[in-house]
């Protein structure tokens, strides 16, 4: 579904990504972790071409994102993405947030889009909030709306970039629950997160990044059992101990 091959990226002379290679197969859940600044966000944004890269290739569902002939808006509309800071559109009601891209990008009728949006809103447990604005919801609620908004586009896979790290601790679980459910339904997911409980529960593989490189890419059992690199071990010890 997602194939990342030898991707390297530079900001000027600073190399953010070094020869990253990995893949996410259909129905797989892959968790990406690593210290701050290691390039996790940059890598995941390469998947839907929010970040251009200078070397290598990323193929999503058979389409190369770096190919200048690729219709990027169309490709992106098929890849859902959830951000650390939710990024709901503050001037629109929750209903409009859910509907707008379905109408403007997929060409669905407004009624159809609203119906689909409300169904997903119900699924994340927020049906009662349809008429509110994002600023009237808590962070956890906004993030669940953001997940529903991405799902409303009927994506073939979902990207998550630290979806819970801007949340107060008591709201983390309501978002993780939605993600776990999604994983269990077979959604293909690439998640940057430090929630190792989530990784243990649903991940197939865990990728550990450091200084722009993929240092570890292992099946979950193997990763939590005996990570090979010393850096991954230190990192794991640090985040599991707090």
């Amino acid at each position, binding site marked *: 579904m997602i194939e990342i091959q030898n991707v390297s990226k530079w900001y000027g002379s600073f190399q953010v990504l070094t020869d990253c290679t990995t893949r996410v197969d259909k129905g797989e859940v892959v968790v990406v972790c690593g210290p701050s600044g290691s390039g996790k966000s940059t890598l995941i944004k390469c998947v839907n071409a929010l970040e251009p890269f200078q070397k290598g290739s990323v193929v999503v569902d058979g389409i190369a994102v770096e190919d200048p002939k690729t219709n990027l808006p169309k490709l992106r509309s098929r890849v859902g993405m959830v951000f650390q800071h939710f990024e709901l559109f503050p001037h629109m009601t929750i209903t409009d947030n859910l509907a707008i891209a379905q109408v403007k990008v997929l060409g669905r009728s407004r009624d159809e889009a609203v119906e689909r949006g409300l169904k997903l809103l119900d699924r994340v447990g927020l049906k009662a909030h349809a008429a509110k604005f994002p600023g*009237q919801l808590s962070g956890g609620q906004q993030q669940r709306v953001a997940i529903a908004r991405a799902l409303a586009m009927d994506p073939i896979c979902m990207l998550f970039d630290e979806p819970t790290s801007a949340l107060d601790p008591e709201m983390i679980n309501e978002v993780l629950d939605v993600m776990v459910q999604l994983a269990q339904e077979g959604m293909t997911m690439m998640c940057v997160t430090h929630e190792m409980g989530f990784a243990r529960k649903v991940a197939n593989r865990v990728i550990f990044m450091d200084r722009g490189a993929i240092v570890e890419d292992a099946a979950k059992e193997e990763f939590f059992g005996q990570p090979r690199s010393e850096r991954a071990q230190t990192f794991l010890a640090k985040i599991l101990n707090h």
Partner: protein
Amino acid sequence: MNYHWDWMFFFQETDDGLKYYDWILSGLGWTTAVSLASLAVALLLGSVLGVMRTTPRRWLVGLGDAYVDVFRNVPLIVQLFMWFFVVPELVPEKLGIWMKQDLPYIVTAVVGLGLYTAARIAEQVKAGINSLSRGQRNAGLALGFTEWQTYRYVRLPMAYRIVLPALTSEAMNIFKNSAVTYAVGILELYFQYKQIIEKTSQVLEITIVVTSCYFVLAFVMNRLLAFIEARTRVPGLIVGTKGDK
């Protein structure tokens, strides 16, 4: 004070058979027309320029920046004279003659004032767009919006809300700035003011009346924009607290 107040002079007949208050009303009409038309030009062009200056395209940014640098830093009256007297000499001869003879003055004046104000509005619009988090654009793109759609549905609606107070003061300023167009022959309020002072000696009355006219225009504009601000206010929104980079 030995001043002889005479408010009734407004009802006296002038040389052209009209009354002085007719002159004022006519000036007020021209001032309003020039100002509103210029404001429309400025909002449209200023928005386009403001957007250009925030795109990832270098040449669009360069073009927008150059426009703003020129039009913001040359005095308005010089710009007006350029449109009236310099530009007709620089364009092909036929066009120049047409501009000088047939093109209504008001069109040239509106272009002059509109293009000047557009530079100022471009600054505001750019600042508004840049005050939004990059994540908003990314969220739009990630949903499949084109770059333009992220402006249309995501960034501009928020940017305008954020810069509405600044736009309000530009919209109020434009009435004041329109007084400069008297210098290129627009028979607007300031022109009438000068003319009436020359013909009568009732300086205080006419000053009070004309000042009040400008005040009322600015006040009405202020209320109108306050109304728009209230209508477009987003419940629960605290601007500029979240977002990535």
